């Protein structure tokens, strides 16, 4: 049987990572997103920009906020949104990623939003469909809309990104959020520190473009932004770190460590947070310092902006 491939007949633009975005691309997305923030706070949030378009959320990994955020973004722009979760799909029956992609593609969607536990899976899928593919997180590789919403949060709170000092703390080796954020923040002219136990730092970490620390106190000294990463419980079981208690003692964000950052430093976290593991529960709730819920709000606006920009290329 001949191998079936789908020829892309149009020049589709995807959002697969921050890596290929220019400073202008990023700025354009953030500028456009600004406009949606206010509209999302109105009673009538509906637009018709994506009327008639179809968006499929294809999530091979559990997610609440990202999936809902894309769903809301699509619906508020007038698109038809379908959520496909792997648990109840043919993937469970053994369908390959490419077959799933081609099956969905045959239904003529305009956007596929994909989350997958394997790095690179979203890229692979993007070659097999003729619609716009948005990476909603692939393995330990990238999570571009998270970095964009973080950037929007920072820009609104601090008025700029360039020149800020940002510390990204925690499970760097496994974090797609860290990778996308390092790329974006460096492009936008921020100074980025990364800090993790040696077991959770990738090899040659300096090559990522950030300044490397193993001591949390040194890493967050004089920083404007402290970005905490979620630590997965399975890291304990596989001996990356000895225990929650020890992790929190050395790498958890608490008042004592935070006092070394700038007095007006902001705390960010991509969520969901582990209270008492990577962040002290009171700090997470401190509305003067923590912008964790604002990040969620910015997420919808940023995704609306991304959908709008990609729709113009369709």
């Amino acid at each position, binding site marked *: 049987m001949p191998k079936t491939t789908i020829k892309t007949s149009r020049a589709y633009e995807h959002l697969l990572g921050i890596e290929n975005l220019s400073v202008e691309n990023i700025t354009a997305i953030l500028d456009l997103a600004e406009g949606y923030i206010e509209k999302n706070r109105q009673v009538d949030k509906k637009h018709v920009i994506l009327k008639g378009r179809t968006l499929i959320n294809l999530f091979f990994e559990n997610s609440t906020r990202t999936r809902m955020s894309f769903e809301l973004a699509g619906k508020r722009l007038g698109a038809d949104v379908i959520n496909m979760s792997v648990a109840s799909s043919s993937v469970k029956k053994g369908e390959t990623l490419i077959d799933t992609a081609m099956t969905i593609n045959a239904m003529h969607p305009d956007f596929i939003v994909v989350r997958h536990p394997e790095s690179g899976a979203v890229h692979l899928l993007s070659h097999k469909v003729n619609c716009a593919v948005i990476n909603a997180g692939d393995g330990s590789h990238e999570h571009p809309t998270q970095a964009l919403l973080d950037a929007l949060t920072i820009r609104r709170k601090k008025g700029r990104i360039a020149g800020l000092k940002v510390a990204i703390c925690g499970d760097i080796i496994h974090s797609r959020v860290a990778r996308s954020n390092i790329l974006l923040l460096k492009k936008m002219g921020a100074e980025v520190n990364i800090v993790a*136990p040696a*077991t959770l730092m990738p090899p040659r970490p300096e090559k990522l473009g950030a300044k490397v620390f*193993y001591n949390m106190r040194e890493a967050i000294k004089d920083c404007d932004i402290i970005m905490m990463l979620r630590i997965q419980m399975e890291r304990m079981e596989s*001996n990356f770190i*000895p*225990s929650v*208690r*020890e992790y929190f*003692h*050395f790498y958890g964000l608490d008042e004592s460590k935070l006092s070394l950052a700038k007095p007006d430093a902001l705390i960010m976290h991509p969520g969901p947070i582990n209270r008492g593991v990577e962040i002290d529960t009171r700090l997470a709730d401190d509305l003067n310092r923590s912008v964790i819920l604002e990040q969620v709000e910015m997420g919808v606006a940023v995704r609306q902006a991304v959908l709008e920009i990609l729709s113009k290329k369709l």
Partner: protein
Amino acid sequence: MKQTFNLPTRADNTTKKTAYINARILDPETGLDIQGQLLTIGNKIADFGEKIFDGKISEEIEIIDCKGHLLTPGLLDIQVHFREPGQEYKETIETGTRSAAAGGVTSVVCMPNTKPVIDEVAVVEFLNQRARKTGFINVYSYGAISKGMKGEALTEMGLLKEAGVVGFTDDGLPVMNALLMRRALAYARELDMVVAQHAEDLNLSAGGCMNEGEVSARLGLAGIPNASEAVIVERDIILAELTGGKYHVLHISTAEAVDAVRRAKKKGLRVTAEAAPHHFCLNDEAIGEYRTFCKMNPPLRAEKDRIAIIEGLKDGTIDAIATDHAPHDEESKRVPMSQAAFGIVGLETMLPLSLELYHNKTMNLRDLFAAMTYKPADIINIPAGRIKKGAIADLTLIDLDVEWEIQPDDFMSKSHNSPFDNWKTRGRAIMTVVGGDVVYRCE
């Protein structure tokens, strides 16, 4: 021979002054080797030199006449088993530190194979407290690499460090899982702590009870091949290179492993090694007719290995001498070879046995004492083993030439399992000073 012991005061605020006069002062780090005087104030070395007192020494200063004997930094033994908590019938911190003081040793590092294992902060704090109350000398300890030394889950290394451990090892239960070893080396690297390995591939040892070779063939005993040690050392060195971690080989015993460490050092890796006196004094022939007092792990090896250990000490490949002081009651040894416990006591024989290398002109005093002072101190990263102004006044006074016979029954240790009974030796500690206080004197 009259031996007296005193617990140190451990006070750092006293102004007690002691002058050591007519001493041959040796500091292995700087190479200083002079006939001179040394003054301690409180627990610190205040001054030393050929002549630091002009005329009569004031009456407030206690004078100790060293009669020309050798005054060195207090000796370290970075591998001992004091069996407390858990097997106090074999040894305690009190008897173990008494034994150390009698051997001229002022600092020891306890292995974590106590019951319970030193894998939790609470155990370290218990040891610290017992050492403060009952210890004649400074007692440090290793923490375990894995919980219960089971080779499965990492201990809370950072918290253990804060509690005071000076390194990590799973002692006689080597880390067989290379991934766990990688994680341990990487994690400990950022704590600036050493990961020490009893290098033995347990699959290769296959329950052996002595060196695999001619002697084991003759005696019909199951052997532990040299490869058992070498493959783990080679593997760990590769992991040390991968992680940038600090790696230490405990009681190295084979020519192959010494060679591996030599190559690693040449490469600039952070790899160190220690050797036990029995591995450079004896070979597996000493087992004779199934002498269980010659059973230890790693086992006494072939003559070529013994020579390789001495070569390693001479060229600095082996950084330190450490005894693996392993007290066992007689019942643990009065059984067939294969069932006997591994290990011998060593604290009271380390110095005379090591001095054989000096008396037979194999090593000079400076290099020999380096392996018992600042070099082991550097492995565990403690500020000891040096004679310098402001340093803690831990000192050992040694009569280099006194001839005596080792009699294990006279040991201060609770256990007397030593193969060196009736050995004729030259040289011994005649005074041991901990923090400016004389804790041991032999007249």
